[in-house]
């Protein structure tokens, strides 16, 4: 279905890409933020080119070994050793924020928006470490929190708009 959609989009000659800032959205990993919030960000001038929504569905990177004698053991190993670097995991010896920097590079994002639900401990406690890594890599970022049930995104719209403008104005 996604492939068909992609083809349809490419075939549609009336569509032109807008002058939006390419951003990676981080911090909402265990849920899908309200659609209104995503629309607000897009209307504010952002293309969300990578995100960490509902990460539980893409926890294991790569394939789980399928030809071993101990399939359950292989599943456990994949869970432990091939898991994504999410703020909810404790990873020995990691360089905090490095995985995020790599994702920015891979996705071609021009900036990062940290957008965590209010009172989300893993996201909010992790953020200063992720921000430090993003700053070290010279990547622009901004942050705000959202409350899932309000539907009020005006302030976010303004902040994201300013962020997108600053990327467009000052990058390159």
């Amino acid at each position, binding site marked *: 279905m996604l492939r068909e959609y992609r083809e349809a989009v490419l075939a549609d000659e009336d569509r032109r890409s807008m002058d939006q800032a390419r951003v990676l959205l981080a911090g909402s990993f265990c849920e899908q933020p309200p659609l209104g919030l995503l629309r607000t960000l897009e209307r504010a001038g952002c293309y969300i080119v990578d995100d960490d929504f509902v990460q539980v569905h893409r926890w294991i990177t790569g394939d789980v070994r399928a030809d071993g004698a101990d399939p359950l053991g292989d599943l456990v190993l994949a869970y432990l050793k091939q898991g994504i670097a999410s*703020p*909810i995991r*404790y990873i*020995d010896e990691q360089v*905090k924020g490095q995985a995020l920097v790599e994702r920015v590079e891979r996705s071609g994002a021009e900036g990062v928006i940290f957008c*965590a639900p*209010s*009172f*989300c*401990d*893993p996201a*909010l*406690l*992790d*953020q*200063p*470490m992720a*921000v*430090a890594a993003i700053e070290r890599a010279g990547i622009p970022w901004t*942050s705000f*929190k959202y409350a899932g049930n309000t539907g009020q995104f005006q302030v976010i719209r303004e902040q994201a708009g300013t962020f997108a403008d600053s990327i467009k104005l000052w990058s390159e």
Partner: protein
Amino acid sequence: MSKQASPGNVAAAALKDQSQERQKAMIAEHFRKLAEAPERGEKCVYTFVPGNLTELIDSFGLLPVLPEINALQSGMRGKSRDYIGLAEKLGHSEDVCTYVKCDIGMLKSGNIGPTGERLPNPDLLLLSYTGCFTFLKWFELLGQEYNAPVAMLHVPYQGDGVVTDSMRTYVVDQIKKKVIPALERISGRAYDEEALKERLARSAQAEEDLVWVLESAKRRPSPIDAYFGGVYYIGPIFTAFRGTQDAVLYYRELRAEIEERIALGKGPVTPDGEIENERYRLVVEGPPNWTSFRKFWQMFAEEGAVVVASTYTKVGGVYDNGFRHDPNRPLETLADYCMGCYTNLNLPTRVQMLERYVREYSADGFLINSVKSCNSFSAGQLMILREVERRTGRPGGFIESDLVDPRYFSASNIKNRLESYFQMIEQKRAGGA
């Protein structure tokens, strides 16, 4: 509203209690040792109150530092507002545990501890993860700040309300394979099981006396306040002193002092004197507020309200269910201890505990002090409130404050709520309920 506590001299006399003097001296000595540690080449281990492996750390000749204790001390000394402000300026969210921000702010302000002396940097961060997710992130943050190694001890949550053999084996394996080697590395000493056993035997002695003291509140009048006074009583055993001879002596003295209070028919000592007329017996759930600790306590004492049992005094170990450190099973007992800390208990177990307290301590009601920035306690508290009320038929009350952020302590709101709560208890009494 009648003033129940008789002023001044009693508190002053209580301050001179031998046990208090001993505790003060123990704390001063510990912080002096910490301040001198870098010079003397002594090593220190930062770790958390719940799930602390103090006997093991001490058996390697290492000094423990407990960041929560430093944070609450900063709160009591009026430093936390600035520390939290500084951490927020550095990008730490308003919504997270204020202990963490207070600690980060203290570190960024020169790491001056509660006695005014500088705290040493950690040689090891022993991340004993007992139910509160914040612990994990807190030590990741400190790991970055200090560039210090972290040893992670993953303690399985008591999701089903029981400790199974495989859970115990899992923790013991980690202590053997991760924690002990890390302690050996930084101390340069080999693991000495006999030294550990000696300390565990002393822990059990102190625990016996602590439980006796806490359970003395079952009497009428209660000779202690098991929340505001209780936080002093748990001090040595929850921090750097479990397993030491000092702790054994402290609890022996404390017990003798309480025995004397019982013999004289005395109520608890408060900052403004002794409670002479015990009007309300309460069970309290949740941590206290530290920035206005004295004022908070006074709001209870003035009404003759005595806390007869609390869950907060179980956060660094639950002993009144019969658990004692067992020197004959040294690593297994440490595993059981970690898994049994209050933060590691599921909600049904917490409800059962509160229900038992309300009944066994003949409480008139129970009160929740909810701290929104402490998810570990506040998640589920409204369910706990309803459930305990349903099971016991005693009125539940709900107040909100914070641990160390003075912006979230509204004295007038809390006082109003408490007054209405006491009226509710009176109405229940009048109705014969």
